[in-house]
Protein backbone atom coordinates (compact mmCIF):
# COMPACT_ATOMS: atom_id res chain seq x y z
CA UNK A 1 0.00 0.00 0.00
CA UNK A 2 1.26 3.51 -0.75
CA UNK A 3 1.95 5.82 2.19
CA UNK A 4 -1.29 7.45 3.31
CA UNK A 5 0.22 10.94 3.37
CA UNK A 6 3.12 12.41 1.44
CA UNK A 7 5.81 14.74 2.69
CA UNK A 8 4.40 17.38 0.32
CA UNK A 9 0.95 17.00 1.88
CA UNK A 10 2.44 17.64 5.30
CA UNK A 11 4.34 20.68 4.00
CA UNK A 12 1.10 22.03 2.49
CA UNK A 13 -0.87 21.59 5.70
CA UNK A 14 1.94 23.24 7.64
CA UNK A 15 1.89 26.17 5.23
CA UNK A 16 -1.89 26.60 5.67
CA UNK A 17 -1.30 26.78 9.43
CA UNK A 18 1.65 29.15 8.87
CA UNK A 19 4.03 26.73 10.58
CA UNK A 20 7.69 26.63 9.56
CA UNK A 21 8.95 23.03 9.78
CA UNK A 22 12.55 21.86 9.40
CA UNK A 23 13.35 18.98 7.03
CA UNK A 24 13.76 16.69 10.05
CA UNK A 25 10.37 17.72 11.40
CA UNK A 26 8.72 17.17 8.03
CA UNK A 27 10.10 13.61 7.92
CA UNK A 28 9.06 12.92 11.51
CA UNK A 29 5.51 14.31 11.16
CA UNK A 30 4.98 12.56 7.84
CA UNK A 31 5.69 9.28 9.65
CA UNK A 32 3.53 10.11 12.64
CA UNK A 33 0.57 11.37 10.60
CA UNK A 34 0.92 8.31 8.37
CA UNK A 35 0.50 6.07 11.42
CA UNK A 36 -2.68 7.93 12.39
CA UNK A 37 -4.08 7.58 8.87
CA UNK A 38 -3.13 3.89 8.76
CA UNK A 39 -5.34 3.44 11.79
CA UNK A 40 -8.16 5.22 9.96
CA UNK A 41 -7.65 2.78 7.06
CA UNK A 42 -8.14 -0.13 9.43
CA UNK A 43 -11.49 1.32 10.43
CA UNK A 44 -12.40 2.02 6.80
CA UNK A 45 -11.97 -1.70 6.10
CA UNK A 46 -14.98 -2.49 8.32
CA UNK A 47 -18.33 -3.03 6.66
CA UNK A 48 -20.47 -0.18 8.07
CA UNK A 49 -22.94 0.27 5.23
CA UNK A 50 -25.84 -0.24 7.63
CA UNK A 51 -24.58 2.21 10.23
CA UNK A 52 -25.90 5.77 9.81
CA UNK A 53 -23.28 8.56 10.07
CA UNK A 54 -23.08 10.27 13.44
CA UNK A 55 -22.36 13.97 13.83
CA UNK A 56 -21.63 13.60 17.49
CA UNK A 57 -21.07 10.82 20.06
CA UNK A 58 -23.93 12.07 22.23
CA UNK A 59 -27.54 11.59 21.11
CA UNK A 60 -28.26 15.25 21.82
CA UNK A 61 -29.66 18.07 19.68
CA UNK A 62 -30.56 21.70 20.38
CA UNK A 63 -28.33 22.48 23.36
CA UNK A 64 -29.19 26.15 23.60
CA UNK A 65 -28.89 29.11 25.93
CA UNK A 66 -31.17 32.12 26.41
CA UNK A 67 -30.12 35.33 24.64
CA UNK A 68 -29.08 37.13 27.85
CA UNK A 69 -26.01 39.30 28.31
CA UNK A 70 -23.38 37.95 30.70
CA UNK A 71 -20.02 39.03 32.04
CA UNK A 72 -17.20 40.23 29.76
CA UNK A 73 -13.49 40.46 30.50
CA UNK A 74 -11.61 43.56 31.53
CA UNK A 75 -9.90 45.01 28.48
CA UNK A 76 -6.65 45.99 30.15
CA UNK A 77 -6.32 42.52 31.59
CA UNK A 78 -7.01 40.94 28.19
CA UNK A 79 -4.57 43.14 26.29
CA UNK A 80 -1.90 42.56 28.93
CA UNK A 81 -1.83 38.89 27.84
CA UNK A 82 -0.92 39.83 24.26
CA UNK A 83 2.64 40.43 23.02
CA UNK A 84 1.64 43.84 21.70
CA UNK A 85 -1.34 46.21 21.91
CA UNK A 86 -2.19 49.72 20.73
CA UNK A 87 -5.28 51.97 21.04
CA UNK A 88 -7.22 49.32 22.94
CA UNK A 89 -6.56 46.75 20.21
CA UNK A 90 -4.29 43.80 19.62
CA UNK A 91 -1.30 44.67 17.49
CA UNK A 92 -0.20 41.95 15.07
CA UNK A 93 2.37 41.71 12.27
CA UNK A 94 1.58 42.56 8.67
CA UNK A 95 -0.83 40.10 7.15
CA UNK A 96 -0.41 41.01 3.52
CA UNK A 97 -1.31 38.21 1.14
CA UNK A 98 -2.63 35.93 3.83
CA UNK A 99 -6.19 37.12 3.97
CA UNK A 100 -8.63 34.19 4.09
Amino acid at each position, binding site marked *: MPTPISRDDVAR*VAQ*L*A*RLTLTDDELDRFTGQLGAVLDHARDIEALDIDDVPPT*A*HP*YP*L*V*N*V*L*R*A*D*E*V*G*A*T*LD*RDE*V*LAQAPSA*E*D*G*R*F*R*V*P*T*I*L*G*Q*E*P
Partner: protein
Amino acid sequence: MSDQSATEAAYVVEGSEGDRWAIVVGLEVHVELATATKLFCACPNVFGDEPNTNVCPTCLGLPGSLPVLNRNAVELAMRIGRALRCTVEPSVFARKNYFYPDMPKDYQVSQYDKPINVDGELALPDGTVVGIERAHLEEDTGKNTHAGGGGRIHDADYSLIDYNRAGVPLVEIVSRPDIRTPDQARAYVAELRQLLVAIGASDARMEEASMRVDANVSVRPEGTTELGTRCEIKNLNSIRSLGRAIEYEARRQVDLLETGERVRQETRHWDEDGGRTRPGRSKEEAEDYRYFDEPDLVPVAPDEAWQAAVDANLPELPASRRARLAERAGRPTTDGGVALTVERDLDALAHAAMDAGGDPARVLTHVEHNVPVEAAGGLDPAQLADLVRLELDGALTATQAKTVLAEVIASGRPPADIAAERGFEAMDTSALEGTIDEIIAANPTEWDDYVHGDDARRGKLTGFFTGQVMKATKGQADGKVVNQLLGARRAAALAGE
Protein backbone atom coordinates in the same frame (compact mmCIF):
# COMPACT_ATOMS: atom_id res chain seq x y z
CA MET B 1 -35.12 30.19 -12.33
CA SER B 2 -34.68 29.02 -15.87
CA ASP B 3 -32.86 30.70 -18.70
CA GLN B 4 -36.20 31.58 -20.24
CA SER B 5 -36.58 34.40 -17.74
CA ALA B 6 -38.44 37.33 -19.23
CA THR B 7 -35.58 39.69 -18.44
CA GLU B 8 -32.78 37.41 -19.69
CA ALA B 9 -31.88 39.54 -22.67
CA ALA B 10 -32.29 42.85 -20.91
CA TYR B 11 -28.59 43.37 -20.21
CA VAL B 12 -25.98 42.66 -22.83
CA VAL B 13 -22.29 43.54 -22.99
CA GLU B 14 -21.24 44.15 -26.55
CA GLY B 15 -17.87 42.96 -27.77
CA SER B 16 -15.64 44.83 -30.22
CA GLU B 17 -16.86 42.69 -33.15
CA GLY B 18 -20.47 43.20 -32.15
CA ASP B 19 -20.63 39.90 -30.27
CA ARG B 20 -23.20 39.91 -27.52
CA TRP B 21 -22.46 38.62 -24.02
CA ALA B 22 -24.91 37.92 -21.23
CA ILE B 23 -23.99 38.15 -17.56
CA VAL B 24 -24.72 35.66 -14.79
CA VAL B 25 -24.67 36.86 -11.20
CA GLY B 26 -25.17 35.13 -7.88
CA LEU B 27 -25.05 37.05 -4.61
CA GLU B 28 -23.80 36.06 -1.17
CA VAL B 29 -25.25 38.31 1.49
CA HIS B 30 -24.05 38.24 5.10
CA VAL B 31 -26.36 39.79 7.68
CA GLU B 32 -25.68 40.32 11.36
CA LEU B 33 -28.59 39.13 13.46
CA ALA B 34 -30.37 41.48 15.86
CA THR B 35 -29.67 39.42 18.96
CA ALA B 36 -28.70 40.78 22.38
CA THR B 37 -25.64 38.52 22.60
CA LYS B 38 -23.12 36.75 20.37
CA LEU B 39 -23.67 33.38 18.73
CA PHE B 40 -21.74 31.17 21.16
CA CYS B 41 -21.14 33.37 24.23
CA ALA B 42 -22.99 35.91 26.36
CA CYS B 43 -20.99 38.95 25.23
CA PRO B 44 -23.16 41.87 24.06
CA ASN B 45 -23.76 42.10 20.30
CA VAL B 46 -23.42 45.88 19.90
CA PHE B 47 -22.06 47.96 17.02
CA GLY B 48 -19.74 50.86 17.78
CA ASP B 49 -18.59 50.11 21.36
CA GLU B 50 -15.03 50.77 22.51
CA PRO B 51 -12.71 48.13 20.97
CA ASN B 52 -12.29 44.83 22.82
CA THR B 53 -14.80 45.63 25.56
CA ASN B 54 -17.31 42.95 24.48
CA VAL B 55 -15.02 39.95 24.77
CA CYS B 56 -14.81 36.81 26.88
CA PRO B 57 -12.74 33.60 26.89
CA THR B 58 -14.99 31.97 24.26
CA CYS B 59 -14.88 34.68 21.59
CA LEU B 60 -11.16 35.28 22.29
CA GLY B 61 -10.53 31.58 21.68
CA LEU B 62 -8.85 31.08 25.05
CA PRO B 63 -7.97 27.48 25.94
CA GLY B 64 -10.67 25.56 27.82
CA SER B 65 -13.55 27.78 26.72
CA LEU B 66 -16.61 26.14 25.11
CA PRO B 67 -19.33 27.51 22.84
CA VAL B 68 -23.04 27.37 23.77
CA LEU B 69 -25.49 28.22 20.98
CA ASN B 70 -27.80 31.25 21.30
CA ARG B 71 -31.44 30.15 20.95
CA ASN B 72 -32.54 33.50 19.58
CA ALA B 73 -29.94 33.34 16.81
CA VAL B 74 -31.41 30.01 15.70
CA GLU B 75 -34.90 31.50 15.86
CA LEU B 76 -33.91 34.52 13.72
CA ALA B 77 -32.08 32.30 11.22
CA MET B 78 -35.27 30.24 10.87
CA ARG B 79 -37.33 33.43 10.43
CA ILE B 80 -35.04 34.44 7.56
CA GLY B 81 -35.26 30.96 6.08
CA ARG B 82 -39.03 30.77 6.24
CA ALA B 83 -39.48 34.33 4.91
CA LEU B 84 -37.38 33.20 1.94
CA ARG B 85 -39.54 30.07 1.51
CA CYS B 86 -36.68 27.77 2.50
CA THR B 87 -37.01 24.36 4.10
CA VAL B 88 -35.61 24.20 7.64
CA GLU B 89 -33.35 21.16 7.99
CA PRO B 90 -31.49 19.49 10.83
CA SER B 91 -28.11 21.24 10.71
CA VAL B 92 -24.57 20.77 11.92
CA PHE B 93 -21.85 23.30 12.69
CA ALA B 94 -18.40 22.92 11.14
CA ARG B 95 -14.99 24.45 11.63
CA LYS B 96 -13.63 26.42 8.68
CA ASN B 97 -9.90 26.42 9.36
CA TYR B 98 -7.70 29.29 8.26
CA PHE B 99 -4.86 31.25 9.75
CA TYR B 100 -5.67 34.92 10.01
CA PRO B 101 -5.77 37.11 13.10
CA ASP B 102 -9.43 38.15 12.70
CA MET B 103 -10.38 34.78 14.27
CA PRO B 104 -8.32 34.06 17.37
CA LYS B 105 -9.29 30.37 17.34
CA ASP B 106 -7.80 30.04 13.81
CA TYR B 107 -11.13 28.72 12.63
CA GLN B 108 -14.55 30.17 12.06
CA VAL B 109 -17.57 28.17 13.17
CA SER B 110 -19.96 27.98 10.25
CA GLN B 111 -22.33 25.50 8.66
CA TYR B 112 -20.99 23.59 5.70
CA ASP B 113 -22.70 20.56 4.21
CA LYS B 114 -25.73 20.66 6.54
CA PRO B 115 -27.03 24.24 6.60
CA ILE B 116 -30.17 25.16 8.56
CA ASN B 117 -32.11 26.60 5.57
CA VAL B 118 -32.11 25.27 2.00
CA ASP B 119 -33.96 25.75 -1.30
CA GLY B 120 -35.86 28.99 -1.08
CA GLU B 121 -36.61 31.94 -3.34
CA LEU B 122 -37.05 35.68 -3.32
CA ALA B 123 -39.43 37.40 -5.75
CA LEU B 124 -38.30 40.84 -6.92
CA PRO B 125 -40.82 43.68 -7.43
CA ASP B 126 -40.55 43.27 -11.23
CA GLY B 127 -41.65 39.63 -10.93
CA THR B 128 -38.21 38.01 -11.34
CA VAL B 129 -37.79 35.09 -8.96
CA VAL B 130 -34.28 34.50 -7.64
CA GLY B 131 -33.56 31.08 -6.17
CA ILE B 132 -32.00 30.83 -2.71
CA GLU B 133 -29.58 27.94 -2.41
CA ARG B 134 -29.06 28.15 1.33
CA ALA B 135 -29.12 30.49 4.32
CA HIS B 136 -26.83 29.25 7.05
CA LEU B 137 -25.65 30.35 10.48
CA GLU B 138 -22.07 31.32 11.22
CA GLU B 139 -20.04 33.58 13.47
CA ASP B 140 -18.64 36.93 12.38
CA THR B 141 -14.92 37.65 12.55
CA GLY B 142 -13.06 40.41 14.38
CA LYS B 143 -12.27 43.72 12.74
CA ASN B 144 -8.80 44.42 11.33
CA THR B 145 -7.50 47.94 10.97
CA HIS B 146 -4.39 48.19 8.87
CA ALA B 147 -2.03 50.71 10.40
CA GLY B 148 1.19 52.39 9.40
CA GLY B 149 2.09 53.27 5.80
CA GLY B 150 -1.05 55.34 5.26
CA GLY B 151 -3.57 52.75 6.46
CA ARG B 152 -3.92 50.88 3.17
CA ILE B 153 -3.48 47.14 3.17
CA HIS B 154 -0.68 47.17 0.59
CA ASP B 155 1.40 49.59 2.60
CA ALA B 156 0.49 48.20 6.03
CA ASP B 157 3.26 47.75 8.56
CA TYR B 158 1.01 46.09 11.13
CA SER B 159 -2.63 45.52 11.95
CA LEU B 160 -4.79 46.33 14.95
CA ILE B 161 -7.55 43.91 15.93
CA ASP B 162 -10.84 44.52 17.71
CA TYR B 163 -12.66 41.33 18.71
CA ASN B 164 -16.00 42.95 19.62
CA ARG B 165 -17.42 41.61 16.36
CA ALA B 166 -15.83 38.17 16.66
CA GLY B 167 -18.62 35.70 17.35
CA VAL B 168 -21.51 38.00 16.41
CA PRO B 169 -24.22 35.83 14.78
CA LEU B 170 -24.46 36.01 10.99
CA VAL B 171 -26.71 34.41 8.47
CA GLU B 172 -25.15 33.99 5.03
CA ILE B 173 -27.79 33.99 2.30
CA VAL B 174 -26.54 32.42 -0.91
CA SER B 175 -28.58 33.02 -4.05
CA ARG B 176 -28.53 30.81 -7.10
CA PRO B 177 -26.89 32.34 -10.19
CA ASP B 178 -30.29 33.60 -11.37
CA ILE B 179 -29.52 37.31 -11.67
CA ARG B 180 -29.06 38.63 -15.22
CA THR B 181 -28.77 42.42 -14.92
CA PRO B 182 -27.15 44.95 -12.57
CA ASP B 183 -30.66 46.31 -11.90
CA GLN B 184 -31.85 42.89 -10.75
CA ALA B 185 -28.84 42.62 -8.44
CA ARG B 186 -29.68 45.98 -6.91
CA ALA B 187 -33.35 45.07 -6.63
CA TYR B 188 -32.49 41.75 -4.98
CA VAL B 189 -30.40 43.43 -2.28
CA ALA B 190 -32.99 46.18 -1.73
CA GLU B 191 -35.80 43.62 -1.44
CA LEU B 192 -33.79 41.36 0.85
CA ARG B 193 -32.88 44.32 3.06
CA GLN B 194 -36.54 45.33 3.40
CA LEU B 195 -37.56 41.79 4.18
CA LEU B 196 -34.86 41.37 6.86
CA VAL B 197 -35.86 44.63 8.53
CA ALA B 198 -39.58 43.79 8.30
CA ILE B 199 -39.13 40.44 10.07
CA GLY B 200 -36.88 41.98 12.73
CA ALA B 201 -33.95 39.70 11.91
CA SER B 202 -31.36 42.41 11.28
CA ASP B 203 -31.04 46.16 10.89
CA ALA B 204 -29.30 45.29 7.59
CA ARG B 205 -27.26 48.47 7.25
CA MET B 206 -24.67 48.25 4.50
CA GLU B 207 -22.96 51.42 5.76
CA GLU B 208 -22.41 49.84 9.20
CA ALA B 209 -21.47 46.55 7.54
CA SER B 210 -24.29 44.71 9.31
CA MET B 211 -25.21 43.67 5.77
CA ARG B 212 -22.37 42.74 3.42
CA VAL B 213 -22.72 41.73 -0.21
CA ASP B 214 -20.33 39.69 -2.36
CA ALA B 215 -21.14 39.16 -6.03
CA ASN B 216 -20.16 36.16 -8.15
CA VAL B 217 -20.00 37.41 -11.72
CA SER B 218 -19.42 35.53 -14.95
CA VAL B 219 -20.19 36.11 -18.63
CA ARG B 220 -21.17 33.87 -21.51
CA PRO B 221 -22.19 34.37 -25.14
CA GLU B 222 -25.80 35.50 -25.30
CA GLY B 223 -28.14 32.56 -25.82
CA THR B 224 -25.77 29.91 -24.43
CA THR B 225 -26.39 28.05 -21.17
CA GLU B 226 -22.98 26.88 -19.98
CA LEU B 227 -21.66 28.93 -17.07
CA GLY B 228 -18.41 30.84 -17.54
CA THR B 229 -15.60 31.09 -14.99
CA ARG B 230 -16.70 33.40 -12.21
CA CYS B 231 -14.97 35.98 -10.09
CA GLU B 232 -16.12 36.87 -6.61
CA ILE B 233 -16.31 40.62 -6.01
CA LYS B 234 -15.90 41.80 -2.43
CA ASN B 235 -15.85 45.16 -0.67
CA LEU B 236 -19.20 46.37 -2.03
CA ASN B 237 -20.29 49.06 0.40
CA SER B 238 -23.56 50.15 -1.13
CA ILE B 239 -26.26 49.04 -3.50
CA ARG B 240 -24.89 51.58 -5.95
CA SER B 241 -21.37 50.17 -5.87
CA LEU B 242 -22.83 46.67 -6.36
CA GLY B 243 -24.32 47.73 -9.69
CA ARG B 244 -21.18 49.59 -10.79
CA ALA B 245 -18.93 46.68 -9.85
CA ILE B 246 -21.00 44.17 -11.82
CA GLU B 247 -20.95 46.43 -14.89
CA TYR B 248 -17.20 46.92 -14.63
CA GLU B 249 -16.44 43.26 -13.98
CA ALA B 250 -18.60 42.02 -16.87
CA ARG B 251 -16.84 44.41 -19.24
CA ARG B 252 -13.42 43.29 -17.94
CA GLN B 253 -14.24 39.62 -18.48
CA VAL B 254 -15.63 40.21 -21.98
CA ASP B 255 -12.47 42.16 -22.92
CA LEU B 256 -10.32 39.27 -21.65
CA LEU B 257 -12.27 36.63 -23.56
CA GLU B 258 -12.34 38.67 -26.75
CA THR B 259 -8.54 38.92 -26.79
CA GLY B 260 -8.31 35.16 -26.42
CA GLU B 261 -7.42 35.19 -22.72
CA ARG B 262 -9.04 33.23 -19.94
CA VAL B 263 -10.91 34.49 -16.91
CA ARG B 264 -9.09 33.31 -13.81
CA GLN B 265 -11.32 32.21 -10.94
CA GLU B 266 -10.35 34.62 -8.18
CA THR B 267 -11.55 37.02 -5.55
CA ARG B 268 -11.45 40.66 -6.58
CA HIS B 269 -11.93 43.79 -4.52
CA TRP B 270 -14.08 46.70 -5.64
CA ASP B 271 -12.21 49.98 -5.59
CA GLU B 272 -14.91 52.61 -5.20
CA ASP B 273 -12.70 55.62 -5.97
CA GLY B 274 -11.04 54.03 -9.00
CA GLY B 275 -14.35 52.56 -10.23
CA ARG B 276 -12.70 49.18 -10.89
CA THR B 277 -12.12 45.73 -9.42
CA ARG B 278 -8.63 44.60 -8.43
CA PRO B 279 -7.37 41.07 -7.86
CA GLY B 280 -7.23 39.83 -4.29
CA ARG B 281 -5.96 36.43 -3.25
CA SER B 282 -6.59 33.44 -5.54
CA LYS B 283 -9.69 31.61 -4.58
CA GLU B 284 -8.79 28.97 -2.04
CA GLU B 285 -10.31 25.60 -2.63
CA ALA B 286 -12.80 24.39 -0.05
CA GLU B 287 -10.34 21.64 0.90
CA ASP B 288 -7.86 24.28 2.01
CA TYR B 289 -10.30 25.19 4.76
CA ARG B 290 -10.27 21.56 5.96
CA TYR B 291 -13.89 21.75 7.10
CA PHE B 292 -14.92 19.25 9.72
CA ASP B 293 -17.85 18.94 12.10
CA GLU B 294 -17.43 21.15 15.18
CA PRO B 295 -16.99 18.64 18.03
CA ASP B 296 -17.94 21.18 20.73
CA LEU B 297 -21.47 21.71 19.41
CA VAL B 298 -24.33 19.27 18.92
CA PRO B 299 -26.64 19.44 15.87
CA VAL B 300 -29.54 21.90 15.71
CA ALA B 301 -32.77 20.22 14.66
CA PRO B 302 -35.77 22.49 15.24
CA ASP B 303 -38.86 20.33 15.72
CA GLU B 304 -42.17 20.88 13.95
CA ALA B 305 -43.66 22.83 16.85
CA TRP B 306 -40.78 25.31 16.81
CA GLN B 307 -40.99 25.70 13.03
CA ALA B 308 -44.74 26.20 13.21
CA ALA B 309 -44.28 28.88 15.85
CA VAL B 310 -41.76 30.68 13.65
CA ASP B 311 -44.20 30.58 10.73
CA ALA B 312 -47.06 31.80 12.88
CA ASN B 313 -45.02 34.75 14.13
CA LEU B 314 -43.84 35.94 10.72
CA PRO B 315 -45.33 39.33 9.87
CA GLU B 316 -46.77 40.09 6.44
CA LEU B 317 -43.82 40.45 4.04
CA PRO B 318 -43.11 43.61 1.99
CA ALA B 319 -44.15 42.04 -1.33
CA SER B 320 -47.59 41.15 0.01
CA ARG B 321 -47.94 44.54 1.69
CA ARG B 322 -47.18 46.29 -1.59
CA ALA B 323 -49.70 44.17 -3.49
CA ARG B 324 -52.43 44.81 -0.91
CA LEU B 325 -51.82 48.57 -0.74
CA ALA B 326 -51.60 48.91 -4.55
CA GLU B 327 -54.82 46.99 -5.04
CA ARG B 328 -56.71 49.06 -2.51
CA ALA B 329 -55.46 52.40 -3.84
CA GLY B 330 -56.01 51.40 -7.47
CA ARG B 331 -52.36 51.56 -8.50
CA PRO B 332 -50.12 48.99 -10.19
CA THR B 333 -48.17 46.67 -7.86
CA THR B 334 -44.91 48.06 -9.20
CA ASP B 335 -45.92 51.67 -8.45
CA GLY B 336 -43.02 53.67 -6.98
CA GLY B 337 -45.19 55.46 -4.43
CA VAL B 338 -46.55 52.17 -3.16
CA ALA B 339 -43.02 50.77 -2.80
CA LEU B 340 -41.84 53.90 -1.01
CA THR B 341 -44.79 53.87 1.39
CA VAL B 342 -44.16 50.25 2.36
CA GLU B 343 -40.42 50.84 2.64
CA ARG B 344 -41.12 53.75 5.01
CA ASP B 345 -43.47 51.52 6.98
CA LEU B 346 -46.34 53.98 6.41
CA ASP B 347 -48.71 51.49 4.76
CA ALA B 348 -50.37 50.66 8.09
CA LEU B 349 -51.21 54.35 8.53
CA ALA B 350 -52.63 54.48 5.00
CA HIS B 351 -54.79 51.41 5.60
CA ALA B 352 -56.06 52.81 8.90
CA ALA B 353 -57.08 56.07 7.21
CA MET B 354 -58.83 54.07 4.47
CA ASP B 355 -60.55 51.96 7.15
CA ALA B 356 -61.76 55.24 8.70
CA GLY B 357 -63.51 56.07 5.42
CA GLY B 358 -60.82 58.02 3.59
CA ASP B 359 -60.83 57.66 -0.18
CA PRO B 360 -57.97 55.16 -0.82
CA ALA B 361 -56.40 56.95 -3.79
CA ARG B 362 -56.33 60.35 -2.05
CA VAL B 363 -55.16 58.85 1.25
CA LEU B 364 -52.18 57.18 -0.44
CA THR B 365 -51.29 60.35 -2.32
CA HIS B 366 -51.13 62.26 0.97
CA VAL B 367 -49.17 59.53 2.77
CA GLU B 368 -46.75 59.33 -0.14
CA HIS B 369 -46.12 63.06 -0.56
CA ASN B 370 -47.26 64.96 2.51
CA VAL B 371 -46.50 62.82 5.56
CA PRO B 372 -42.88 63.04 6.74
CA VAL B 373 -41.86 59.61 8.02
CA GLU B 374 -40.57 60.96 11.33
CA ALA B 375 -43.89 62.73 12.03
CA ALA B 376 -46.17 59.90 10.94
CA GLY B 377 -46.55 58.48 14.45
CA GLY B 378 -48.34 61.66 15.55
CA LEU B 379 -50.95 61.57 12.80
CA ASP B 380 -54.38 60.21 13.72
CA PRO B 381 -55.57 58.15 10.72
CA ALA B 382 -59.17 59.28 11.37
CA GLN B 383 -58.09 62.90 10.90
CA LEU B 384 -56.38 62.02 7.63
CA ALA B 385 -59.67 60.41 6.55
CA ASP B 386 -61.56 63.58 7.57
CA LEU B 387 -59.17 65.72 5.59
CA VAL B 388 -59.61 63.61 2.47
CA ARG B 389 -63.40 63.83 2.90
CA LEU B 390 -63.25 67.65 3.03
CA GLU B 391 -61.10 67.60 -0.08
CA LEU B 392 -63.44 65.35 -2.05
CA ASP B 393 -66.47 67.35 -0.92
CA GLY B 394 -64.84 70.31 -2.62
CA ALA B 395 -64.31 72.17 0.64
CA LEU B 396 -60.55 72.13 0.16
CA THR B 397 -58.37 72.27 -2.93
CA ALA B 398 -55.45 69.84 -3.17
CA THR B 399 -53.03 72.64 -2.26
CA GLN B 400 -55.13 73.72 0.71
CA ALA B 401 -55.44 70.12 1.87
CA LYS B 402 -51.66 69.82 1.91
CA THR B 403 -51.37 72.97 4.03
CA VAL B 404 -54.05 71.78 6.44
CA LEU B 405 -52.46 68.33 6.73
CA ALA B 406 -49.12 69.82 7.73
CA GLU B 407 -50.91 71.67 10.53
CA VAL B 408 -52.88 68.58 11.59
CA ILE B 409 -49.60 66.72 11.92
CA ALA B 410 -48.02 69.57 13.90
CA SER B 411 -50.95 70.29 16.20
CA GLY B 412 -53.17 67.21 16.21
CA ARG B 413 -56.24 69.46 15.79
CA PRO B 414 -59.21 68.53 13.57
CA PRO B 415 -58.76 69.42 9.86
CA ALA B 416 -62.14 71.18 9.66
CA ASP B 417 -61.16 73.62 12.45
CA ILE B 418 -57.86 74.42 10.79
CA ALA B 419 -59.54 74.90 7.40
CA ALA B 420 -62.10 77.27 8.92
CA GLU B 421 -59.44 79.27 10.76
CA ARG B 422 -57.43 79.73 7.61
CA GLY B 423 -60.54 80.83 5.73
CA PHE B 424 -60.38 77.80 3.44
CA GLU B 425 -64.09 77.55 2.81
CA ALA B 426 -66.11 75.66 0.35
CA MET B 427 -66.27 77.76 -2.72
CA ASP B 428 -69.84 78.04 -3.86
CA THR B 429 -69.83 76.80 -7.46
CA SER B 430 -72.47 79.34 -8.49
CA ALA B 431 -70.15 82.16 -7.44
CA LEU B 432 -67.34 80.47 -9.40
CA GLU B 433 -69.63 80.09 -12.44
CA GLY B 434 -70.39 83.82 -12.30
CA THR B 435 -66.68 84.60 -12.20
CA ILE B 436 -65.98 82.34 -15.17
CA ASP B 437 -68.79 83.93 -17.21
CA GLU B 438 -67.35 87.39 -16.51
CA ILE B 439 -63.90 86.26 -17.64
CA ILE B 440 -65.29 84.68 -20.82
CA ALA B 441 -67.18 87.90 -21.62
CA ALA B 442 -64.03 89.96 -21.08
CA ASN B 443 -61.89 87.76 -23.39
CA PRO B 444 -64.05 86.93 -26.45
CA THR B 445 -61.14 86.25 -28.86
CA GLU B 446 -59.43 83.81 -26.50
CA TRP B 447 -62.74 82.15 -25.77
CA ASP B 448 -63.51 81.63 -29.46
CA ASP B 449 -60.09 80.06 -29.88
CA TYR B 450 -60.70 77.88 -26.84
CA VAL B 451 -63.99 76.60 -28.23
CA HIS B 452 -62.86 76.03 -31.83
CA GLY B 453 -59.06 75.58 -31.62
CA ASP B 454 -57.17 72.29 -31.78
CA ASP B 455 -56.18 70.36 -28.68
CA ALA B 456 -52.80 72.05 -28.30
CA ARG B 457 -54.33 75.51 -28.60
CA ARG B 458 -57.11 74.62 -26.18
CA GLY B 459 -54.52 73.26 -23.73
CA LYS B 460 -52.70 76.60 -23.76
CA LEU B 461 -55.93 78.56 -23.32
CA THR B 462 -57.04 76.30 -20.49
CA GLY B 463 -53.96 77.57 -18.70
CA PHE B 464 -54.87 81.13 -19.55
CA PHE B 465 -58.47 80.89 -18.32
CA THR B 466 -57.53 78.95 -15.19
CA GLY B 467 -54.95 81.64 -14.43
CA GLN B 468 -57.57 84.36 -14.82
CA VAL B 469 -59.97 82.51 -12.51
CA MET B 470 -57.26 81.97 -9.92
CA LYS B 471 -56.39 85.65 -10.07
CA ALA B 472 -60.01 86.62 -9.56
CA THR B 473 -60.49 84.17 -6.66
CA LYS B 474 -57.07 84.78 -5.09
CA GLY B 475 -56.12 81.17 -5.66
CA GLN B 476 -59.07 79.74 -3.77
CA ALA B 477 -60.70 77.97 -6.75
CA ASP B 478 -60.12 74.28 -7.37
CA GLY B 479 -58.34 73.85 -10.71
CA LYS B 480 -60.22 70.68 -11.43
CA VAL B 481 -63.61 72.31 -10.92
CA VAL B 482 -62.60 75.29 -13.09
CA ASN B 483 -61.61 72.86 -15.82
CA GLN B 484 -64.94 71.07 -15.61
CA LEU B 485 -66.90 74.34 -15.76
CA LEU B 486 -64.89 75.56 -18.77
CA GLY B 487 -65.55 72.25 -20.53
CA ALA B 488 -69.26 72.53 -19.84
CA ARG B 489 -69.36 76.12 -21.19
CA ARG B 490 -67.57 75.00 -24.38
CA ALA B 491 -69.97 72.08 -24.91
CA ALA B 492 -72.91 74.49 -24.51
CA ALA B 493 -71.35 76.98 -26.96
CA LEU B 494 -70.78 74.26 -29.61
CA ALA B 495 -74.32 72.89 -29.12
CA GLY B 496 -75.74 76.40 -29.67
CA GLU B 497 -74.04 76.95 -33.05
